[in-house]
């Protein structure tokens, strides 16, 4: 069995208070939530100012979303592992 599965099983049997993983993910998702909002908002502003650049702006918007959302997802997985 893999390490993460053993760790998850162990965490489930010895904890008295469960759900720390969910609380941890909730806290971890605050920053990326604001971050993705800023990225998309600025991209929309950029498209509104210069509509002929929308392809480039859209590509860079997806790049920015991928980077900031990765942090939220690492928070989700960390809740499962620890």
């Amino acid at each position, binding site marked *: *069995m893999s390490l993460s599965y053993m760790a998850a099983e162990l965490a489930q049997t010895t904890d008295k208070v469960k759900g720390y993983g969910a609380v941890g993910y909730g806290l971890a998702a605050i920053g990326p939530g604001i971050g993705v909002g800023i990225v998309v908002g600025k991209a929309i502003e950029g498209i509104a100012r210069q509509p002929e650049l929308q392809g480039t702006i859209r*590509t860079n918007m*997806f790049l920015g979303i*991928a980077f900031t959302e*990765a942090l939220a*997802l690492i928070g*989700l*997985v960390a809740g*499962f592992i620890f």
Partner: protein
Amino acid sequence: MAGEFHAPSLSDFFPPAVLFGGTPFELNRLMLVRIIMAAVLIAVMLLAFRSPKLVPRGLQNVAEYGLVFVREQICFEVLGKESGKKYFPLIASIFFAVLFLNFSSIVPFLNISSNARIGMPLVLAVVAYITFNFVGIKKYGFWKYMRSSIVVPDVPWAMHILLIPIEFISTFILRPFTLTVRLMANMLAGHVMLVLFFSATQFFLFDGAAWMKGLSPFSLAGGFAFTLFEMLVIFLQAYVFALLTAVYIGLAQHADSH
């Protein structure tokens, strides 16, 4: 008649072995799903380009549309025309591999994405990692490539003590790690949400108390909405993986001019 509600847990992702149990080649349900989706990908591509015509029709048209999308929107936009053509096979392979392997997340009886465990995203991320490092090292030589990737020009020398470890970790350690975890966590979260909604519908309708039966249409509607969302996430994750690979290759090619 109220039964227990079994929420989805991590053990969903580690089903018991189905074939060849006990050997290193044992296959459980998830490995079988991976093999099936890889076979579907190969079959679709072979069928589409079996006898290619100049004016495409039918399946060749659809496959060419996907390939042109990858070429125009990802390779040419990020890498330019000649580099784009050179690395297009790799990036198209990564895009279609992620897309088709993810697709089993919404297929009714398969229901789990082949990228939901860390093995497959790890392989794809290692391929991307080796590629962009190889490109950089071949163009600049090993030490010059490392120097230009890590050392940021035009900062006061005291800042370098802080910046060099940060840049090193961010470029050479975090990039493959986040590529892997991004794909895997998206697919894991999507699977858990879908299983939660559909098992909640089943529980509300059949095993729940009387007042819970009225909640089942809402959880079914939630399951339907999240299946549509999962389709978007599948395509978006494939696009983002291929786009980031192209961006890393482009950054390695232009490591001189930050």
